[in-house]
């Protein structure tokens, strides 16, 4: 009886190792693309590759980041001034969007330099 549980834990361990390998393989290939780096209070909260479209709640839902067609922008914010929503779309190295009430900054890293078209 006990040994079946040990065996199943072992199977789960092998599964986990396989998943980790897959994760690293996928990660490695995405280093070439630009990423939207999200900082809250100066601490990095996450990196979102511009090549992957999606809608991402940030900072516990205070802001919403949208990535589409290789560009990132903030579509929703719970602050009164909505400055970040009006900062437009960013896609090139060094460009950023800031939401000061929520101490949130989204910046682009790892892509091509400003001036060149960074779309993939």
């Amino acid at each position, binding site marked *: 009886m006990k040994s079946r*549980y040990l065996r199943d834990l072992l199977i*789960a361990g092998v*599964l986990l190792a396989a998943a980790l390998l897959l994760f690293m393989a996928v990660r490695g290939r995405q280093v070439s693309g630009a990423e939207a780096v999200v900082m809250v209070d100066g601490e990095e909260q996450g990196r979102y590759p511009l090549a*992957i*479209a*999606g809608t991402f709640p940030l900072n*516990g839902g205070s802001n919403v980041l949208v990535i589409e067609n290789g560009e990132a922008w903030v579509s929703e914010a719970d602050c009164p001034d909505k400055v970040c929503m009006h900062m437009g779309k960013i896609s090139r190295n060094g460009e950023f969007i800031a939401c000061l009430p929520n101490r949130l900054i989204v910046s682009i890293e790892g892509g091509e330099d400003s001036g060149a078209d960074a779309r993939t």
Partner: protein
Amino acid sequence: MKAKKITTMALATALCMVLSFVESQIPAFVAIPGVKVGLANIAVIFAMYRLGWKEAAVVSLIRVLLVSLLFGSFASMFYSLAGAVLSLVGMGILKKTGKFTEIIVSVAGGILHNIGQIVMAGILLGTDVLRYYLPLLLISGTIAGVVVGVASAILIRRVPE
């Protein structure tokens, strides 16, 4: 006998609700949708081993409905439903083979729950997030599945028939 079954199902459903609430109070440690422990699955697996697949399915689906109404949104119900159905089917098949313990059944449930949610998100949002998230959700689903599986195994043994 029938009353006892209904009582056990109600107990499992109540346990689901409490565990879902406890989990909703844990701050997300990874800023990625779908990455969570899935504590409520402990009660679903308990129902599956104690009562059967159909009863566990009822408990799980009632949980999805109630949790979405109480702590979630209309959209979150679709994600949860897709995850719950896929997870129930997978866990049922693995349990039926009789070859695995609660641990593997739970790991499959965790992974399939994640896959169901992300596929539904992909359909509803029209994005290809699946490709990028899948490895991460496999990792989180496996770890969470082991935790839930061990807890379920203990629960099934400790709670008197």
